[in-house]
C-alpha cells in the first residue's frame, strides 16, 4: 500500500487490542514499548512481550501501517544490558523504527542495526535545529519528536533547517516541561521519566477522604484537595494546586489536554511529517475514538487546508476525552507561554 502523503498519524498502543484499535481506525503508524521498564510508560499491566510485539507488527504490516518501538528511558549502568537486548529484540520483531533518547543507545543501534530506523524520542530534549544536527550527524536519525515547548513559528523554523522528519504531539496529556529535562517526579518520589519511565507513579499515589475534601497525595505530599463538586484529577505534580504569593492556584498548569485540531493547517504548512497521539496507558476504546477523530480531521485538512475547519463530530469526540474537560494549544500558542 502506498504511503499516505502529507501528515502521518502516529497512535499509541499499550496492548495488542489497542494496537488493533489504532490501525483499524486509521493510524498510519503505532508506537509501543516492551514490558521491561525501559520506556516512558512503565505502568503495571501495560506494554508488550517480544512475541506480542511481533504479532502486532505483522498485523500492522498486513494493513500497510508501521510500528515504532519506544525505548526512551535513559538506562543506568545496571540496565544497560537490558536496553541493548531490547534494541536487538525490536530489530528481531521486525519493527520499522526505534524511538530512542539516550545518546549511547542511539550509537549502539546505529552500529548494530544500521538498517533499522532511528527516531529521536521527545525525551531526547532536542528543541532546536542545531541539537538535531548533532543527532543526525552522529547517529543518522531519520525523525525527531519535538518537545512540547515550541510555538508553531519555532516548529516551522526547526523544520526548515534540521534536514530530518519532524513529528509533533497532537492530542493527549500535556507535559509542560521540556521532556527529558524534568525531575519534579524524582524530587518527590525518587522515580522520573528519565530513570524509570514514570511520572508521578501510581504506587506513590494515595487518596484520602477528609471533611475538607478528597486529598490526592504523592509520596505523602499533598498535590491537591478536591471539594465535593470538583472532579478529582490524577495528582501529576505539574497539575497540582499549590500556594504561591499567598493564593492557592494551579501554579504551573491546570489539568488540561493538548489538542491541535484547530491548527492542523498551520502544522501541515510548516512541514510537520507526523502527528503523535499521547496515551499508551489508555484503553483500546479511547485509542479507537481518538484515532478515528484525528483521521477524519487530518483527511479533511489535507484535502483542502485553506477551507479546513475542525470537523464538528470529531471535535466533540475529542473534547469529551480531554483531561478535566479542558483543552489547550499549549506552547504552540505564544500567549500560553
Amino acid at each position, binding site marked *: 500500500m502506498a504511503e499516505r502523503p502529507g501528515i502521518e498519524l502516529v497512535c499509541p498502543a499499550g496492548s495488542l487490542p489497542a494496537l488493533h484499535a489504532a490501525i483499524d481506525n486509521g493510524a498510519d503508524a503505532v508506537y509501543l514499548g516492551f514490558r521491561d521498564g525501559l520506556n516512558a510508560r512503565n505502568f503495571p499491566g501495560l506494554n508488550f512481550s517480544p512475541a506480542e510485539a511481533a504479532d502486532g507488527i505483522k498485523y500492522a504490516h498486513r494493513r500497510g501501517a508501521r510500528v515504532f518501538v519506544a525505548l526512551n528511558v*535513559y538506562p*543506568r*549502568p*545496571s540496565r*544497560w544490558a537490558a536496553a541493548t537486548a531490547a534494541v536487538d529484540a525490536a530489530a528481531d520483531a521486525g519493527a520499522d523504527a526505534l524511538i530512542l*533518547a*539516550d*545518546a*549511547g*543507545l542511539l*550509537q*549502539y543501534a546505529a552500529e548494530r542495526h544500521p538498517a533499522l530506523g532511528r527516531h529521536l524520542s521527545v525525551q531526547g*530534549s*532536542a*528543541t*532546536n*535545529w*542545531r*541539537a538535531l544536527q*548533532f*543527532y543526525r550527524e*552522529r547517529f543518522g536519525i531519520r525523525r525527531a519528536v519535538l518537545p*512540547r*515547548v*515550541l*510555538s508553531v513559528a*519555532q516548529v516551522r*523554523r526547526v523544520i526548515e533547517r534540521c534536514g530530518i522528519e519532524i513529528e509533533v504531539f497532537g492530542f493527549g496529556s500535556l507535559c*509542560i*516541561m*521540556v521532556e*527529558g*529535562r*524534568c*525531575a*519534579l517526579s*524524582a*524530587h*518527590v518520589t*525518587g522515580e*522520573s521519566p*528519565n*530513570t524509570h519511565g514514570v511520572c508521578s507513579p501510581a504506587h506513590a499515589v494515595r487518596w484520602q477522604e477528609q471533611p475538607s475534601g478528597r486529598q490526592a497525595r504523592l*509520596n505523602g*505530599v*499533598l*498535590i*491537591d484537595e478536591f471539594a465535593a463538586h470538583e472532579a478529582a484529577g490524577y495528582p501529576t505534580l505539574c497539575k497540582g494546586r*499549590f*500556594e*504561591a*504569593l499567598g493564593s492557592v492556584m494551579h*501554579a*504551573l*498548569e491546570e489539568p488540561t489536554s493538548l489538542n491541535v485540531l484547530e491548527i492542523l493547517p498551520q502544522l501541515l504548512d510548516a512541514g510537520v511529517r507526523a502527528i503523535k497521539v499521547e496515551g499508551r496507558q489508555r484503553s483500546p476504546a479511547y485509542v479507537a475514538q481518538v484515532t478515528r477523530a484525528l483521521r477524519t480531521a487530518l483527511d479533511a485538512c489535507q484535502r483542502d487546508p485553506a477551507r479546513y475547519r475542525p470537523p464538528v463530530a470529531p471535535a466533540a469526540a475529542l473534547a469529551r476525552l480531554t483531561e478535566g474537560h479542558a483543552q489547550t494549544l499549549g*506552547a504552540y500558542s*505564544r*500567549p*500560553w*507561554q
Partner: protein
Amino acid sequence: MKLSVGPLLYFWERDQVFAFYRMLAAAPIDSVYLGEVVCSKRRALKQEDWEAIGRDLAAAGKEVIFSTLALMEAESELAALARLAAGTATIEANDMAAVQLARGRPFVAGPHLNVYNGPTLRLLGALGARRWVAPLELDTAAIAELLTERPEDMECEVFAYGRMPLAFSARCFSARVRRHNKDDCNFVCAEERDGLTVYTREHEPLFALNGIQTQSAQVRNLLGGIGELKAAGVQMLRLSPHSHQAVPFSEVIEAFAHAVRGDETVQCPASALPGGYCGGPMLEAAR
C-alpha cells in the same frame, strides 16, 4: 576535592552581580561558571560584562567556564551560542546544540545533558568533554556506579549546594503566578533573588519558581556527604549561588573549603529560605 561556584541561576541587579563575583575572586574556590543558563531575555549583563568578570576571576587564579542556556529555542539564542563557541572560552554545554559547536576541544558536559551510563559518557569524552556534571536526580551510589565506566581523563563534578534546578518549560512561571505571560513578563523574576517559594496546601515548601525554571524549595546541602562523594570518585563540588538574604554565601564556601580539607566538624550557616536544607539528592531521599 575541588570547589566550583555554578552559574548564577537568578536574575539579580547588575550591581549585585558584580559584587558577588568580586567576593568570589577572593574566596577559596577553584572554578567559576559564568553566564545565563535560564532565560535569554535577562540582559542586565551583556556578554562583554561577563567577559570582564571572567578576566578578573582568571587574574585571581580561578578557572573560568561559560555555561550555556539549558533550553534553546530561538534563532537569537543559537546565534549567541555560536558566537560564544567561536571564541576561546571553555564552555559548559547544557544542550546538545552546544556540544555540536564545542566538540573537538575541551568542554564541560553540564548537568542538563542527559548522561546516565558509561557509553554516553565515553561518547561525550570522545567529542572533547573533560568534566561531567552529574544529572541532579542521580544519587551518590548511581554516580559511583557510572564512574567505574568513565574515560580516564574525565573529571566528575556534583551539584552539592543550592536549590536544585528540576525542570525547564516554555512557560514563565514567575510571570504566570502574577497573571502575566512570558512575552509581557516585566522581568518579575527579579523580584525574588532566590526564587519564589511554592507551598503545598498544607504549607509545606515544595518548589521554587525561577522564570522558566522550576527548582526545589529545599536547598541541597551535601556537606555531610563529602566522604562518600570522594569515595565515589567525584573530584569537584558545585555550590550554586544564593543571595545574602538567603544565606551568607561566603560562609557556605568557607564551610565547604574546610570540609574538603578533612574538617568533619564544620557546619554550614543556616539557610533562611523556606524549605531549609535537604541532605539527600532529592526531597524523596530526605523524607
